[in-house]
């Protein structure tokens, strides 16, 4: 048990609402080993934030077990808080404190000694690219800079684990890339365990392990390659001239496992590329639907995610 950075067993969280009990997280089990970058992936409302908060001890759990570094989320919450850094989804740093004052405050409440502060604060500010903004109020920073400040503040006590709840929400693409390269540096240099919630599939690809959360349940888990491997068959992509007609014609064809739309392109999962490609081309030609070349493409996390969610909804019958 102790060799795990984060673990959850049958973790369940229910909220009382006016309409009755709502289950936000149901029977969640996950294991994160030290040094991993674990991504909890799922659409909005899947229960990612709730799961993170329960594991951190910010919300009480309804059932199950969870721990960080072997410390129980509920019973040992102060031990956890001394060893874990956390970035909340919203900007929760005091907006009326400057960058430097925020750093000093979090250093103070984490009991970082004055000498250590003198060394670590400039280091972290440089790392986060905030060295030139020490006197700016946190509330006046851009979205990306706020997240970087939150990251710097969450690292002040040299935590072994950082948990980030949608750290790039409302952040522009360039800042997002910068932020992730900071996380990459942390993992490489300090061997930090990173737990990140995100709805973005490109971010999921950067994780070493991911769990797909949907409707409060973990519907798949593994490395990104394993997750993509869960999909049956191969993926063909093409752009038809008459989109709706092509979609209608191909649906239900023999050997077609699944159809996804992707902008003006169609993504067709087939059991055998060689045989089905020709069949589809013939079928489209018979209907007089023009199209560009059918090509086999690599399955990306996005297709895998949509496919897994579709399977899940079919199973539940929603």
């Amino acid at each position, binding site marked *: 048990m102790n060799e795990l950075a984060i673990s959850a067993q049958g973790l369940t969280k229910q909220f009382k609402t006016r309409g009755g009990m709502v289950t936000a997280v149901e029977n969640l089990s996950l294991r994160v080993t030290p040094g991993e970058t674990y991504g909890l992936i799922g659409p909005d409302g899947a229960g990612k934030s709730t799961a993170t908060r329960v594991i951190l*001890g*910010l919300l009480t759990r309804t059932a199950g077990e969870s721990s960080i570094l072997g410390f129980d989320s509920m019973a040992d919450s102060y031990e956890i*808080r001394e060893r874990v850094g956390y970035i909340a989804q919203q900007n929760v740093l005091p907006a009326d404190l400057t960058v430097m004052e925020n750093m000093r405050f979090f250093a103070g409440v984490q009991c970082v000694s004055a000498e250590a502060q003198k060394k670590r604060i400039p280091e972290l500010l440089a790392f986060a690219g905030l060295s030139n903004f020490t006197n700016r109020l946190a509330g006046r920073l851009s979205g990306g800079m706020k997240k970087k400040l939150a990251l710097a503040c969450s690292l002040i006590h040299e935590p072994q684990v950082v948990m980030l709840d949608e750290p790039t929400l409302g952040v522009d693409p360039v800042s997002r890339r910068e932020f992730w390269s900071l996380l990459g540096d942390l993992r490489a240099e300090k061997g930090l365990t990173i737990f990140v919630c995100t709805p973005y599939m490109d971010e999921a690809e950067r994780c070493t392990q991911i769990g797909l959360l949907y409707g409060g349940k973990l519907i798949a888990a593994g490395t990104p390659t394993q997750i993509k491997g869960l999909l049956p068959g191969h993926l063909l992509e093409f752009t038809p001239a008459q989109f709706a007609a092509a979609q209608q014609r191909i649906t239900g064809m023999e050997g077609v496992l699944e159809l996804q739309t992707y902008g003006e392109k169609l993504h067709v999962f087939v059991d055998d590329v060689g045989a089905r490609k020709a069949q589809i081309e013939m079928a489209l030609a018979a209907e007089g639907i023009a199209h560009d070349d059918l090509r086999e493409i690599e399955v990306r996390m996005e297709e895998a995610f949509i496919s897994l969610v579709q399977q899940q909804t079919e199973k539940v019958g929603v």
Partner: protein
Amino acid sequence: MLRRIWAITQKEFIQLFRERATLILLLVAPLLQLALFASAIHTDVKHIPMVVADQSVNQASRAYLNAFVQSDYFDIVATVASQADLVTAIDNGQASLGILIPPDFAAQVKLGQAQVLMVVDGSDSYTTNSAYNTANAISQSYAVSLIHHSVTPLTMSVRILYNPDLNQLWFIVPGLLAALVQGLTLGLTALAVVREREVGTIEALLVTPIRPVELMLGKTIPNLVIAFANTTSILAVAVFLFGVPFQGNLLLFASLAIIFAFSGLGLGLVISVASQSQMQAQQLSGMFNFVGMFLAGFLFPAYALPPVLRAIGYIFPMTYFLPIVRGIFTKGVGITAIWGQVAAACGLLVVVLFAAARLFRASLD
């Protein structure tokens, strides 16, 4: 632990000084309130408007009415003919008191059986009591002055301690100081925690190892400095501007004032941790402040309250501090005379701080 409290204290100080306008308001408002209340509150009402129906109109009735006017307590605002007109004048709000002197007044005085009718506006108890008592006293002393060779069977010799001239300000100001400090301390911390919860910054605090009691103390200390500055300035204005003499030991007063302010801030924190929103906290602290005025013995003596209300009064720091402030400020007594109140005030302080820390939900649920 101390390091974390200090970190929170520093943060609160920075945030306090960042809002310069609010800070100035916090420091000045209690003084304005003191000046306003001290000038406006009068337990003896002077210049009560009076309407007169003098059906006698002679030297005797004039002398009698003169006694009223010269007392300064009554102003004759109108002269009417009949009892019905008196009532009309009071109905209209023109006067609070009406006096009817019958036509045979002078003759009846000589016979020693004169009667006058006093009609009093009963819609406002303060004026009514004051008007009734004063008019009664004036009539009595007028009657006594008519008996030239009187032998009074009983003479009372009165010695009023601490405030021999019955100076109104001396009565009001020490109690007002307590009431103002209780009100402002409640307001200072009532929003402290609920604001963090509403803005969301509580999440950043909760993921740090800050313990609830550390958060409570860290939030209280900067406000304690403000409350103490307020107490000092109120005291200075009371003594130097209003000339209310400070009879006791200043150091003793200062240390007890800190305990008082501390418990007021603690009570504010209890409101803050129990509230769901800033709006709710504001309403609650307003209500506490208002109820405290009535139950803590500021407006009426606490011993005159029904037992249940007296029991509720015990949650207000002012209940204990009022006898302390009156004791030290007005009477000049030392700790031996008030130690019971001091012990109770210390007990309350511990209870409210403990309650605030216990009621604080260390989760986001």
